[in-house]
């Protein structure tokens, strides 16, 4: 038991350290998120009412795409330099190690998105209470996205040019998150009851946290055969 927790912490720390050494990898999804959010006002026009209307959806779609973009590198470098095989051979359970890597991925990609999202939301003229709801949905949603995406990343890790494939696998699975995430923010913007969506996102995050690491571990073993 203590060994398992130590291994979990060590994996997470290693990943975080690696990300800090390469800050570009960390920043790219964030910049991408901001750019995609800029595209919509440019395409739709600067009408305030329209922007307010599409704001929640656009922010959520941009966050989803930014998460997807970053997923490809989750296991890639470890696969290439062989350290993934060391993880597979480790005496500690693989789901826990995979979860450590996923946690690091969320801390480096998901959490910054949640923090930056209000800036985008303000430019879309969303009121402050709504921005708070948006951060909450993104917080819960990005956790699920990291976990779900880790399964896809593990399945496609050995595949040459797997980025498009990864999106193809993860996008349909993430659609419920998008529906609930964006609709909950939209409900809040219309002053309606939105708690059901928050509960759903929380339930999904807990469910993904429970089941996804095992699927990720199974997928990693298959990809490394």
């Amino acid at each position, binding site marked *: 038991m203590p060994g398992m927790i130590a291994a979990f912490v060590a994996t997470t720390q290693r990943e975080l350290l690696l990300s800090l050494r390469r800050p570009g990898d960390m920043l790219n999804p964030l910049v991408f998120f901001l750019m995609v959010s800029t595209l919509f006002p440019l395409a739709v026009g600067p009408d305030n009412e329209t922007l307010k209307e599409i704001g929640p959806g656009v922010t959520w779609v941009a966050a989803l795409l930014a998460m997807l973009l970053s997923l490809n590198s989750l296991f890639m470098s470890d696969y290439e330099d062989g350290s993934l095989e060391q993880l597979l051979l480790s005496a500690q359970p693989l789901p826990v190690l995979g979860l450590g890597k996923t946690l690091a991925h969320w801390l480096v990609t998901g959490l910054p998105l949640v923090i930056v999202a209000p800036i985008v939301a303000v430019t879309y003229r969303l009121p402050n209470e709504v921005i708070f709801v948006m951060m909450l949905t993104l917080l819960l949603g990005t956790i699920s996205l990291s976990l779900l995406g880790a*399964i896809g990343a593990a*399945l*496609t890790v*050995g*595949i040459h040019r*797997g980025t498009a*494939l990864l999106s*193809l*696998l993860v*996008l*349909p*699975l993430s*659609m*419920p998150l998008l*529906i*609930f995430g964006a*609709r909950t923010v939209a409900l809040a913007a219309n002053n309606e009851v939105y708690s059901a969506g928050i509960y*759903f996102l929380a339930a*999904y995050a807990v469910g993904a946290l429970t*089941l996804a690491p095992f*699927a990720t571990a*199974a*997928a990693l073993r*298959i*990809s490394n*055969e």
Partner: protein
Amino acid sequence: MWNTIWTFFHKLASPPHFYRISAILLPWLAVPGYLLVAWGTYNGLFTAPEDYQQKDAFRIIYVHVPSAYLSMMAYMVMAISAGIGLIWRMKLAHAVAAAAAPIGAAFTFLALATGSIWGRPMWGTWWEWGDPRLTSELILLFLYFGYMALRSSIGDTAKADKASAVLALVGAINVPIIHYSVEWWTSLHQGQTLLAEGGPAIDTAMLWPLLANIFGFSLIFGSMLLRRLRTEVLFRERRKRWVKELALGGQQS
């Protein structure tokens, strides 16, 4: 008794035996299937009365409902056999999953196309985003695409089998979640009539052809699955002796 059934299944799992048994089984699925669909479609189109509201447009349900049902059914077949293949390492089960996916995708497409054709006169639009079942059917089609894309991008069959099996299982857990999350939107779709409380809210002259078509489509699905499975098995076992003998000795196996 149990032993006989057990040996039967063990034999079924061996490709040459499966190939022999499936040849016998195939006409028993295909012939009744096509007969039922012929009867159901004829009666659905000609003898069933007009709907008092939708007039003749309702008759598309004789294709739409069976395809929608089979689009889900095929995913279940795929996911369950993928699970069996993953847990008990049964190669034939993986072949079943591989064979079921394109058929399922085809039925999903058929359900979408007929639904959209029906929607044109009824809703006045080819596509209605507000309709939950149309949307979840579309996401189901994407799931099939993802599954087939993953399978085709891994060269090694054994690896492709296992990787796509994990994806099928993850997808199977998500299918009900997708279904209900999409339902959360406001619905324009017809309420359920077949499984409504207090018996089906549909005239028996309309119902019998529909049931015949649902059952007939299922049998045809079974026969198509078997047919694809037979080619799949032959392809997978192409280096084995029994396949060579089969190929050289004509139909004799």
